[in-house]
């Protein structure tokens, strides 16, 4: 009864105060830097489009090198993303759901590749997986299997650099998800693995998708770690960014511009498509 009276009072007060609708001007100290920031991000892309030698574009597109590099880029970035999903989602779950000693330290370690210059990452990978590296020597001796300067090496380099993006995105999604759904699953007889596959993962699917897209985009643009760890062999380890760099170094500015435009177009198209399908529907 008391509660009903109180609700009445609330309802009345809401009616009494009309909703305020004031349209405010956007303050100049916010608007001007915002426009400058937008211009700073867009202008270089516009420059790329403006400088594109449109006349010779079809002929340059047909050059086998460009398409080979593009295919290698898309393949390695996609495989690297799958690797990151398989390893990164469980890692994110561990960080978000299990309390263990040193969890903060592990979380900090996961983000190290984010702040590490990719070239340094490539050197580090060589030290571990190189033919004389800690693990690489053993892999070579046991299986006759080497990673550096192979397509697999490209995937390893890209996964190393891109995985933190996925882990951070998925861990954030897991922390944001209501873990009481997992408790509800437990009261219905679901163990932790079943709960993860049947409840947790569907709940954080949009977060996983967003993380995978970020991860894929980062892998696609990877340069430093790849060129250090996997080298720059056309058809084997030469991805698009490497091809752009090599063409530019060779003095062919138009060629570099064309390659850049292709990479830009393909990645923007794919990201836009994924965004429509995954991110906005979430």
């Amino acid at each position, binding site marked *: *009864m008391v509660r009903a009276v109180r609700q009445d009072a609330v309802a009345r007060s809401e009616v009494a105060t009309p909703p305020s609708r004031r349209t405010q001007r956007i303050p100049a100290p916010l608007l001007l830097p915002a426009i400058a920031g937008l211009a700073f991000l867009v202008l270089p892309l516009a420059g790329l489009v403006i400088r594109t030698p449109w006349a010779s574009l079809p002929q340059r597109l047909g050059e086998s090198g460009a398409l080979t590099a593009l295919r290698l880029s898309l393949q390695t970035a996609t495989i690297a993303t799958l690797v990151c999903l398989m390893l990164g989602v469980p890692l994110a779950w561990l960080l978000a759901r299990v309390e263990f000693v040193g969890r903060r330290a592990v979380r900090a370690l996961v983000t190290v590749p984010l702040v590490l210059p990719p070239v340094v990452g490539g050197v580090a990978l060589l030290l571990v997986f190189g033919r004389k590296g800690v693990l690489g020597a053993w892999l070579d001796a046991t299986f006759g299997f080497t990673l550096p300067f192979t397509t697999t090496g490209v995937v390893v380099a890209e996964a190393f650099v891109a995985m933190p993006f996925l882990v951070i995105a998925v861990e954030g999604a897991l922390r944001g998800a209501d873990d009481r759904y997992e*408790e509800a699953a437990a*009261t219905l*007889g679901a163990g932790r693995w079943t709960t993860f596959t049947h409840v947790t993962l*569907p709940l954080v699917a949009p977060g996983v998708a967003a993380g995978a897209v970020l991860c894929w985009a980062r892998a696609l643009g990877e340069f430093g770690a790849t060129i250090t760890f996997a080298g720059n062999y056309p058809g084997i380890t030469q991805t698009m960014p490497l091809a752009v760099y090599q063409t530019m170094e060779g003095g062919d500015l138009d060629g570099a511009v064309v390659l850049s435009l292709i990479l830009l177009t393909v990645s923007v198209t794919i990201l836009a498509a994924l965004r429509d399908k995954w991110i906005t529907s979430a």
Partner: protein
Amino acid sequence: MTEVRPEPTSDPVVDAHLVVERSRFQLDLKLRIDAGEVVGLLGPNGAGKTTALRALAGLQPLTAGHVTLAGADVDRTDRRVWTPAERRPIGVVFQDYLLFPHLNAIDNVAFGLRRHGMDRRTARRVATTWLARVGLGEHARHKPRQLSGGQAQRVALARALAVHPALLLLDEPLAALDARTRLETRAELHRHLTEHDGATLLVTHDPLDALVLADRLIIIEDGRMVQEGDAATITAQPRTDYVARLVGLNLYRGTAEGRTVRIDDRFALAVADPTQGDVFVAFPPSAVALHPHQPDGSPRNTWPAVITGMQRHGDNLRVQLDGPIGVAADITPAAAAHLHLIPGRSVWVAVKAAETRAYPADTRNQGFRPTPP
């Protein structure tokens, strides 16, 4: 216990001594629930109701004590026995239901059945039957976000009952519903609880839910049981301020000598029932009359008081008064207008001895024990 069960030799479904210690809170509650019995766990916010439910469900480990469900120890700290929630014979209806948002109603209900080893087709068939039983046959393929609050509550109930739990746990099952849906859903819930042959623990802070749905009430405050009994006993003889407010009675504790109960050094109440020693005195706000001047004669309790607050209470006004003892009075709006009642005004309070009830505060002299053996 409060009533005689048909099979007194059968073991209770729930036999628990729940002890959960936190930094500023301790729950210490002994609990027995028989098959077919619905126990209402009632208490103010923060009393430990939900903690008790979570301890039974296996979502909150005990600090000490034990939980025995259907004859099996599932949590016993001294023997390091621990059975996680997923292997306990329980069903839980959560306060906001927690239906899985990515599954439709059938798959939500089938979820528990699948985890209990049923194949997909059978689970879906049984789930469909359950949805029909709760009157949601045509909403079977709807996702939770397409269901109203009352419908979601029924899906949650079907999901919990479908696995035939030995113990059904309901956490404020009606709290999220609006007043009208609540009325219908309460009646519906009552029917399903009657049909449920396992034990049921209903956690609520709403006395009406508890009175309608539960066979027996346990009232806890600050993690301890303060009163236990059937609805009639508790509404007639509250033992704490919280319970008294809950059932709408003025409650005082004092020392009785025959028909006089001394509340403190300066104040005593005349009562109808002769008692001795430590007693409670209770009377309803409707038994309190207010007068502009000291009323004369008649064997009544009268004292001067100051109005501290007024609010609507049904068709009447409930007036809060401060004086030698605090008291609530229910009076008609006409009388309030006649007496020019406003907060701050001084009036005289009168209570007829015949409308008071006095009963021993020492529970050992009473028919019930607060903690079962």
